[in-house]
């Protein structure tokens, strides 16, 4: 045993003082009374005395001495060493979406927190604590923390995620923690059931038969002024009668009572006449243990398809024709000389067989550039003539390339002359090439704008006469003028693709919880937004000086809707070794309790003696 403040033991000097006072106070009090006759006579009437009554004085003295001793000890703060009593604790806390499910008044996650706090409280001081939360990824909240209160505080501050639980991630995090510290007692707090588990103690917070129904797989079609929406619903715990509601633009337009047999996927569909809609929501109205999976909101993907395009060409016929055919562009054609005096800004600049001295700020198509352009991301080597051969369509498996070449046959495109380029940016993607020389390639130029390069003149190719030209032009236009978002319904844990449109500023996303997520727009033509919450994300940006918002919905993960499921074994490989760690025990709370008890006892003895309470 050691003392934090040994000087506190000086308080023990009060013990002899108390004894002295007791001795002095034990003297008889003298008093003169009119007559002692009755006092002497009282001897005859005195009943048999309680032997304890004679001890009250000494009991009081003992209690007072004990009080002084305990107060002195409490001030000295003794720390008792308990050999090999401490332990290393590693808590793996399942933070997946299903942990948000209600179990009575608390969620499973809150129950898991209480379980962990309970283990920490019961542990001996001197132990160390590690907490790892795991959902689709693992996060070490604290590692080898030795302060109980701090550990408890941090456990209580953790929050459940909404994402899918990843068993491999869970097991991996536990195994890693166990490998790093084989002395650890590993606790897994989860709502999953594990038939077998080794080297780990399961803190099971999963309830059985928690009423839960879920709605997912929402699809829709809006044609002829009729919105046809459908979804699938399922009830997990038992057969259920539920009410499903369709809300369009905030107004409830249809409800339907649906019988959901247990664990059976039941399709639900609605039809609603409306010329236009911004959003609709299908939801199960009935309350259950997990509210987040009861509805999905779908937003109408709106985008401004009118592009302002400037074609700089002496003979811009092909491009003007195809853009007119696609019908989305506001096209203006000027000669290269006229371009020198252009002041207006355009979304897309097409330089057909000419090169600007400086690349404009916007999407750029460079057709047959035979001179190097600053920031264009490539250099011109030579012009190859009299080829008259078929060019090759890229067979890249990259999603990006396949997306740009979707619908393009590309098997019979021939060119007679072409330009060889060198020193291309690595971030450029080749769509067509000839003899390993890129002929049509796209990418982000040195100004951060999307750029398309044709290495040949359309007049010296049959490409402009094929349907592939129209299809590729459409794809390239979508690339040059991408939608800010391509999809409005995701599942939590997915990454939403945010296209960085040229001239877009102040891009940020707001999560359902209200948290602002700032998106890096400095690099690349798109950004990824990790959807960690269930609900509506709002993407805000300023486009050509105008504030614009896009919304997408992150729905609950289907896997997390099922209350419990039998999981594979959870076995940590390795042998647990003894921590050989001495624990400490701070007896201060015990001393304070003792002090209170003694104080009450002393007061009782005082009252017994003073007021003869019997």
């Amino acid at each position: 045993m050691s003392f934090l403040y040994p000087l506190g033991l000086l308080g023990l000097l009060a013990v002899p003082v108390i004894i002295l006072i007791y001795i002095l106070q034990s003297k008889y009090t003298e008093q003169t009374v009119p007559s002692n006759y009755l006092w002497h006579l009282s001897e005859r009437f005195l009943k048999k005395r309680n032997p304890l009554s004679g001890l009250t004085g000494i009991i009081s003295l003992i209690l007072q001495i004990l009080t002084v001793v305990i107060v002195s000890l409490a001030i000295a703060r003794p720390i008792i060493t308990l050999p090999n009593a401490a332990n290393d604790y590693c808590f793996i806390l399942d933070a997946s979406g299903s942990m948000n499910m209600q179990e009575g008044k608390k969620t499973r996650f809150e129950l898991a927190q209480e379980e962990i706090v309970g283990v920490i409280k019961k542990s001996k001081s001197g132990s160390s604590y590690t907490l790892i939360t795991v959902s689709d990824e693992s996060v070490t909240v604290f590692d080898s923390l030795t302060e109980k209160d701090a550990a408890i505080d941090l456990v209580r501050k953790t929050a459940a995620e909404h994402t899918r639980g990843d068993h491999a991630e869970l097991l991996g995090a536990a195994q890693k923690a166990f490998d790093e510290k084989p002395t650890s007692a590993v606790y897994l707090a989860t709502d999953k059931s594990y038939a077998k588990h080794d080297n780990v103690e399961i803190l099971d917070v999963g309830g059985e038969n928690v009423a839960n129904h879920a709605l997912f797989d929402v699809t829709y079609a809006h044609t002829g002024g009729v919105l046809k929406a459908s979804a699938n619903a399922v009830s997990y715990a038992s057969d259920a009668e539920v009410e499903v509601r369709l809300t369009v633009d905030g107004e409830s337009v249809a409800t339907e009572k649906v019988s959901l047999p247990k664990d059976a996927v039941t399709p639900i569909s609605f039809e609603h006449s409306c010329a236009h809609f911004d959003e609709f929501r299908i939801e199960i109205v009935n309350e259950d243990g997990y509210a987040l999976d009861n509805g999905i909101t779908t937003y109408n993907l709106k985008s401004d398809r009118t592009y302002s395009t400037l074609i700089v060409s002496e003979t811009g016929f092909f491009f003007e024709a195809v853009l007119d055919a696609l019908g989305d562009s506001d096209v203006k054609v000027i000669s290269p000389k006229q371009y020198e005096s252009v002041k207006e800004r355009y979304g897309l600049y097409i330089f057909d067989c000419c090169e600007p001295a400086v690349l404009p700020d916007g999407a750029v198509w460079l057709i047959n550039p035979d001179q190097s352009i600053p920031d264009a991301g490539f250099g011109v080597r030579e012009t190859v003539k009299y080829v008259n051969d078929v060019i090759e369509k890229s067979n890249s498996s990259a999603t990006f390339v396949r997306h740009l070449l979707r619908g393009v046959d590309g098997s019979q495109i021939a060119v007679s002359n072409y330009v060889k380029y060198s020193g291309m940016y690595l971030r450029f993607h080749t769509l067509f090439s000839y003899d390993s020389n890129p002929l049509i390639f796209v990418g982000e130029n040195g100004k951060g704008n999307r750029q398309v390069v044709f290495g040949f003149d359309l007049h010296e190719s049959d490409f402009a006469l094929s349907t592939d030209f129209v299809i590729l032009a459409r794809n390239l236009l979508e690339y040059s003028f991408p939608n800010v978002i391509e999809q409005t319904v995701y599942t939590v844990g997915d990454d939403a693709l945010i296209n960085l449109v040229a001239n877009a500023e102040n891009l940020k996303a707001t999560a359902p919880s209200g948290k602002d997520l700032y998106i890096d727009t400095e690099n690349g033509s798109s950004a990824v937004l990790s959807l960690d919450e269930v609900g509506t994300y709002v993407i805000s940006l300023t486009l050509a000086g105008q504030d614009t918002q896009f919304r997408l919905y992150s729905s609950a993960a289907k896997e997390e809707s099922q209350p419990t499921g039998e999981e594979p074994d959870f076995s940590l490989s390795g042998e647990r070794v003894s921590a050989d760690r001495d624990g400490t025990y701070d007896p201060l709370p015990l001393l304070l309790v003792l002090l209170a008890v003694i104080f009450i006892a002393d007061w009782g003895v005082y009252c017994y003696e003073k007021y003869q309470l019997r």
Partner: protein
Amino acid sequence: MGKMIIDEAFLSELEALQTLLRNNVAGMFGGNHQSKNFGSSCEFADYRDYVPGDDISKIDWNVYARFDKLYQKLYLDERQMHTKIYVDASRSMQHGSPEKAEQVLRMAAAFAYLSVAEMDKVSVYAIHGGHADEVISGMVGKDAYLNCINALNEIEFVGDAALDEAIRTSKIGRGDGYSILISDFLTDAPYEAAIDKLAEQKRDIFCIQILSREELNPQFRGKMHLFDSENVGDFFRKKIDRDRVNAYKAALKHVTERIKMYCEARGGHYLLVPAYQSLSDVFFGNMVDLEVLK
């Protein structure tokens, strides 16, 4: 300032009261108390045959006219009583708050006034040791009361008091009124002999026990060394706790009941009067209830 303060209004109220005597009065002089003997009062009692030598003025001539025989009317006799008040003047009477002595003197004065108001003779004795010192002797009439009563304030409460010896050696008288003993009776001296002596002399006995608040309900606790005020050599050294106090109260009850029984067995009265109790309550309450006064 004397210890005895009697309110004049209270004295006026006392005149409405009258003492009730149990024994046949045997006073020598006429007074307000009816004797069992026939006398010269105005109250008719009976007839008897006239014998020569009787006062002819008391012959009932109406009866003679009816029965042709002489009958003499008899009237009740009314005698003057001699109230004797014995005051315990020991040191112990000076204790308590208020002091027992104050209550003793007030009661003696009040009784004295009550007696003189009934045209009785009053004597007051202060008992010191075995002597009954006559403080007021044969006081008759209200004028004498006003002149003499202040003598009570001259009584010194010192030493001890032996009631038995003091009363036996004093002039007790016979059958001529109340003998009132005012004391705390907290003594192992045989006061019973004094009561017996008074009863033997056919006096109406009235024992008044005056006790202070502390004596009735002792408050001190813990280890106590108690000295007797009348005997320094007598001490009581004990731890006083609730058991001891209960025993004390039992002893007090035993003592008071014993005095009461002793008095009542001898035709007397007993009254326990706390030193703090008002005279009005005592005289118009306790004593009327006890049928000492009416």
